[in-house]
C-alpha cells in the first residue's frame, strides 16, 4: 500500500529530497506536487547566468517533464496552495485541486523583501527571485534605459552585472559602507566596488532610499540625502524572508520561519518544512548546501531512518559574475583572540585574508584568485591545525611541503560541493555520486551522465583524478583508449593497420578491424575518413557523408542553423575589388553580420544554407576561394607587413606568408592548422602561439611550432633556424606532412608534439635532409588532389542535393 506524499513547492530542496527518496525507497510513496510557478524544477542559483545571457532556461532545468512522468509524480504547475486542512489531511489549491496526504512537506521557499517606501508598488519595481523576475528584467532591458538596483549583496550585484550585460546602465544603491558586508571584509568589498565601477556600474554606498517616484510607472529614486536618480526600472534585492504564511494559517508553530526540529518536522509530526521557509535551531538558511542537507534528512526520515539530524554547517559563498573571482567562508570579524594573515598584490588585484583562532582557520576571504578557496574551506570545516604550515599557508595548497603535492590527494580533499566543471556547473559530489551509482569506469561515462568535461574539456584532468580516487585501481586509463565504442582499437593502432593491411575504404577498415557496429558512429567515421584521405591520396574517394556538416557543405554551421562564409585573404592581404565583392554579396543576400576574424580575414555570418552556392559564385567571380574556416585543415597564415613597409622588418614576412598559404591551402590535417609569419622579433603577427610560426630575423627565419592559444595557452617551441625562404618552406611543409601522417584525428600539433616528443620530430624534418625531402614530396603529391576550390565545385553543381529542400508541402512555402 503506497503512502501519499504531498509537497507544496517545487524548488531545489524538495527536488533533492525526492531524488534521494526515490533512490532509497522507490515505490513507497505516491507523490503529488503543487508548484506556484508554472514550470518544472530548475536551478535557481543559475538565474544570474540566464539574466546575463550566458545560459538559457533549458540549461538550468534540473528535472524535465520526463522525470515527473518516470516517477509517476502528479505535478500541478501554477497551482498555489491556499489551505492545509490538518484534521482531514487535505491540501487545496487556489484552482480547487485537492490532494490527501499521509505526509506533507511545506517547501514554499522565501519571498523577496520589499522595502515599504512610498512608490514601492509602482510598475517597474521588480524583485529578483524567480524566472518570471528574470524575464521581466530582460524585457525591460530591451528598451535600454537606466536600472537602479537597491541592495549591494550577492543577489543585487548579480542582478546589476546581468542588467549591464543586457545593455542597460546601472546604479547600485547599498545601505552599508561597503558591498556584500555579510560575506566580505571592507578591503575585499572595496576591490569589488572598483571592479564593478570599471565595468560601468555606478555604486553608491551608505545610500538610504527615501522614496520611489513616478506617475504611471517608476521614474526616479530619491535618497534621504536629497540625491535623485533617474530610473526606468528598480530592482529590489535587499533580502528575503521565509514564506511561512501557509504554515501560520494552518496553526503550525512559526517564528521567522516555520519552526522545525532537527529532523525537519514541524509541530505537526505528519508535516515537514524544508528549505528557505523552515527555521531550524533558530536559524533560517538560504544557501544551497545546508538546504540540500535538510533535503537529505527529510528523505531519510520519510524512508524510516530517524537517526539523521540537521547540524548547522559553515557555508562558502561565491559571486556568480563572469570575470570576478570572489570566495568567502566562515567568520571574518576581528577579535582579540584572533590572528589574521593577509596577502595583497595591488597590481594583480589580489587580496587574500585568513582569520585564525587557536591555529585553526575560522574564516577566509579571497578576491582575485580563489583557486585555494575549497582547500581553506575544507580545513575550516575539519578544524585542521595549521601551525606546521603557518609561514606558507596564505600562498595556498601548491606551496605546502617540500615536494609538489600529490594532485590525487588534493582532489580527494575537495569538498563535495567544489565545482569541477565550470561550463556545466557540475560539482564533485555529483561526479563521484554518478560514478558510484551508475557504475561508471570511463571518462566518457562521466561525460554522458553528468556533462562534466563534456563542453570545453579543461576539467578533464580533474575528472580523471576523481575517477581514480573513487575507483582506485579499477580505473585504468593507461589501457589504450578505444577510438569510440565501435572498436577496441585505439587511434594509433587503426592508423598503423590501415597502412599495414592496405585498407583503402571505410567499409574495408570496419570489416578487417572487426568493427562492432554496421556503419560506425559520428566519432569514428570522420576520423577514418581523414586517415584514408591522408594515407591514400588519389586512391581513396572522400566520403562526404562521414564528414561533419561544416566540411560537407564547406561553411560553418551556426547555432541557429545558418552558416558563416569566410573567403581566403592570402596572408591577410586584400584589395578594393575583393572588398567590393564582399560588400556586394552581403547586400545582395541580406547577410546580417560581417565580422573581421582573428585570422586577418572577413567572416560573413548568418547566410541561409540555400544561398550558399549563390554567395560562393559571386565571391569566386571576384577571384576568391574558400578560406576553409570550417576545416580540419590549413586555416590562416597571419602576417605582419614586414620589410615591405615596416621600419623594423627584417624579411618579407607578408610574402612568405602568402607563399606558404598558396602552397598549403586545401590540405586536410588531423585538426585545424594556423600559421603566422612575423617580420621581426617584435612578433606583431603573434607567431609564437600558433601551430607553426615563423619569426624573421636578420640572418633568416626562426621556425617555431606547437603553440596554443585556445583552451590551453602555450608558447611555441623553437624547432630550428633556416637561412633561406626556400629552406623555411621545405621544413614547414615536411613538418606538416609528418603531423598529417602521425597524429590522431582532432589532435592539435602541440598535443601531438608532446606525445611523440620533439627529438623524433627534429630527426624527421630537420637533421635528416633526405627524410625531410621525402615528407615534403609526399605533401606536394597529395596537394595535387587537394587544391581544388570546393566552392567552385559546388557552384558548378556538385552535391546540389545539400542546398535545396526535397519537397515543399502546402502554400505558401514553409516559414523558416
Amino acid at each position: 500500500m503506497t503512502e501519499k506524499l504531498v509537497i507544496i513547492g517545487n524548488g531545489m530542496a524538495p527536488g533533492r529530497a525526492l531524488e534521494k527518496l526515490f533512490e532509497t525507497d522507490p515505490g513507497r510513496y505516491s507523490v503529488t506536487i503543487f508548484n506556484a510557478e508554472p514550470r518544472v524544477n530548475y536551478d535557481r542559483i543559475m538565474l544570474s547566468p540566464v539574466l546575463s545571457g550566458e545560459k538559457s532556461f533549458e540549461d538550468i532545468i534540473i528535472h524535465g517533464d520526463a522525470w515527473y512522468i518516470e516517477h509517476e509524480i502528479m505535478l500541478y504547475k501554477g497551482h498555489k496552495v491556499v489551505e492545509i486542512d490538518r484534521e482531514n489531511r487535505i491540501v487545496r489549491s487556489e484552482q480547487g485541486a485537492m490532494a490527501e496526504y499521509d505526509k506533507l512537506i511545506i517547501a514554499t521557499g522565501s519571498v523577496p523583501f520589499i522595502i515599504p517606501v512610498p512608490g514601492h508598488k509602482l510598475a517597474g519595481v521588480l524583485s529578483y527571485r524567480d524566472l518570471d523576475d528574470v524575464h521581466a528584467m530582460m524585457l525591460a532591458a530591451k528598451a535600454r534605459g537606466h536600472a537602479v538596483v537597491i541592495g549591494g549583496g550577492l543577489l543585487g550585484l548579480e542582478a546589476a552585472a546581468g542588467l549591464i550585460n543586457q545593455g542597460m546602465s546601472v546604479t547600485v544603491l547599498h545601505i552599508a559602507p561597503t558591498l556584500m558586508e555579510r560575506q566580505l571584509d571592507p578591503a575585499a568589498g572595496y576591490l569589488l566596488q572598483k571592479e564593478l565601477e570599471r565595468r560601468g556600474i555606478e555604486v553608491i554606498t551608505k545610500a538610504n532610499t527615501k522614496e520611489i517616484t513616478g506617475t504611471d510607472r517608476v521614474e526616479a529614486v530619491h535618497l534621504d540625502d536629497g540625491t535623485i536618480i533617474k530610473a526606468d526600472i528598480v530592482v529590489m534585492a535587499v533580502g528575503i524572508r521565509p514564506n511561512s504564511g501557509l504554515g501560520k494559517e494552518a496553526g503550525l508553530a512559526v517564528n521567522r520561519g516555520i519552526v522545525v526540529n532537527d529532523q525537519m518536522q514541524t509541530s505537526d509530526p505528519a508535516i515537514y518544512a524544508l528549505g528557505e521557509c523552515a527555521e531550524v535551531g533558530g536559524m533560517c538558511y538560504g544557501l544551497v548546501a545546508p538546504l540540500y542537507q535538510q533535503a537529505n534528512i527529510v528523505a531519510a526520515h520519510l524512508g524510516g531512518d530517524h537517526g539523521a539530524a540537521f547540524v548547522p554547517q559553515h557555508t562558502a559563498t561565491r559571486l556568480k559574475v563572469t570575470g570576478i573571482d570572489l570566495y568567502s567562508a566562515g567568520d571574518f570579524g576581528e577579535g582579540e583572540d584572533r590572528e589574521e594573515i593577509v596577502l595583497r598584490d595591488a597590481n594583480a588585484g589580489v587580496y587574500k585574508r585568513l582569520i585564525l583562532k587557536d591555529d585553526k582557520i575560522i574564516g577566509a576571504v579571497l578576491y582575485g584568485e580563489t583557486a585555494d578557496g575549497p582547500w581553506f574551506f575544507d580545513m575550516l570545516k575539519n578544524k585542521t591545525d595549521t601551525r606546521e604550515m603557518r609561514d606558507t599557508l596564505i600562498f595556498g595548497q601548491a606551496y605546502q611541503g617540500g615536494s609538489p603535492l600529490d594532485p590525487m590527494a588534493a582532489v580527494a580533499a575537495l569538498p563535495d560541493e567544489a565545482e569541477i566543471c565550470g561550463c556545466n556547473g557540475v560539482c564533485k559530489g555529483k561526479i563521484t555520486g554518478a560514478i558510484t551509482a551508475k557504475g561508471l569506469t570511463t571518462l566518457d561515462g562521466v561525460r554522458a551522465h553528468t556533462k562534466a568535461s563534456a563542453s570545453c574539456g579543461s576539467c578533464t584532468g580533474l575528472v580523471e583524478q576523481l575517477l581514480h580516487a573513487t575507483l582506485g585501481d579499477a580505473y585504468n586509463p593507461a589501457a589504450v583508449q578505444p577510438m569510440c565504442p565501435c572498436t577496441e582499437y585505439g587511434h594509433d593502432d587503426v592508423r598503423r593497420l590501415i597502412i599495414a593491411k592496405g585498407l583503402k575504404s571505410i567499409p574495408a577498415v570496419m570489416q578487417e578491424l572487426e568493427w562492432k557496429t554496421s556503419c560506425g558512429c559520428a566519432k569514428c567515421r570522420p576520423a577514418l575518413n581523414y586517415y584514408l584521405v591522408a594515407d591514400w591520396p588519389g586512391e581513396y574517394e572522400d566520403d562526404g557523408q562521414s564528414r561533419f556538416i561544416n566540411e560537407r557543405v564547406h561553411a560553418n554551421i551556426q547555432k541557429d542553423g545558418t552558416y558563416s562564409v569566410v573567403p581566403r585573404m592570402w596572408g591577410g592581404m586584400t584589395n578594393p575589388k575583393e572588398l567590393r565583392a564582399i560588400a556586394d554579396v552581403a547586400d545582395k543576400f541580406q547577410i546580417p553580420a560581417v565580422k573581421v576574424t582573428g585570422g586577418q580575414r572577413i567572416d560573413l555570418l548568418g547566410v541561409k544554407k540555400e544561398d550558399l552556392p549563390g554567395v560562393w559564385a559571386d565571391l569566386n567571380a571576384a577571384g576568391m576561394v574558400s578560406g576553409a574556416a570550417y576545416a580540419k585543415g590549413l586555416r590562416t597564415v597571419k602576417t605582419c607587413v614586414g620589410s615591405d613597409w615596416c621600419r623594423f622588418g627584417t624579411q618579407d614576412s607578408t610574402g612568405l606568408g602568402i607563399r606558404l598559404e598558396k602552397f598549403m591551402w586545401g590540405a586536410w590535417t588531423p585538426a585545424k592548422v594556423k600559421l603566422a609569419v612575423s617580420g621581426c622579433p617584435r612578433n606583431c603577427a603573434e607567431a609564437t602561439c600558433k601551430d607553426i610560426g615563423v619569426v624573421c630575423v636578420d640572418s633568416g627565419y626562426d621556425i617555431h611550432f606547437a603553440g596554443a592559444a585556445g583552451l590551453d595557452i602555450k608558447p611555441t617551441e623553437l624547432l630550428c633556424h633556416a637561412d633561406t625562404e626556400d629552406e623555411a618552406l621545405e621544413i614547414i611543409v615536411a613538418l606538416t606532412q609528418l603531423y598529417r601522417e602521425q597524429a590522431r584525428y582532432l589532435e592539435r600539433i602541440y598535443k601531438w608534439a608532446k606525445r611523440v616528443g620533439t627529438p623524433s620530430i627534429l630527426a624527421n624534418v630537420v637533421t635528416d635532409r633526405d627524410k625531410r625531402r621525402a615528407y615534403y614530396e609526399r605533401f606536394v603529391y597529395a596537394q595535387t588532389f587537394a587544391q581544388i576550390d570546393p566552392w567552385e565545385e559546388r557552384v558548378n553543381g556538385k552535391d546540389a542535393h545539400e542546398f535545396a529542400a526535397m519537397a515543399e508541402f502546402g502554400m505558401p512555402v514553409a516559414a523558416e
Partner: protein
Amino acid sequence: MTDWIEIGDINAIPRRGARCVNTPSGKIAVFRTQEDQVFAIENRCPHKHGPLSEGIVHGASVTCPLHNWVFDLATGQAQGADEGSVRTYPIDVIDGRIFMAAEAALVAAE
C-alpha cells in the same frame, strides 16, 4: 484513411544522409540509411534546436551537428544518457518512391 503524398525518389537522398521537406509549420528531415531504410523525423533537436538533417547518419541513428545528441530514427528517442525525443512521421517507400502521410504536413512540429 491516410492520404499519402509523394515527396520524391529515394535516390534524391544520399545513403547515410538526409534532406528536408518544407511544410507550412516547419521542416521535416527525411533520412536514408546505408541499408536504404527511410525515416522521417522533426528537423529540430529538443536540446538546442540543432538541424538534425545535417547530422552524421550511422546505423538507424543520427548525431546532432550542434552538440552530438544521438537519436534513434525509428522511435525519435534520444540515445545514451541524454533524455528527450523528436516527433517521427510515417513514411512508405514503394518502388523507390517515398510517400509521406499528408497530415504530417499539417501537424509538423513548430
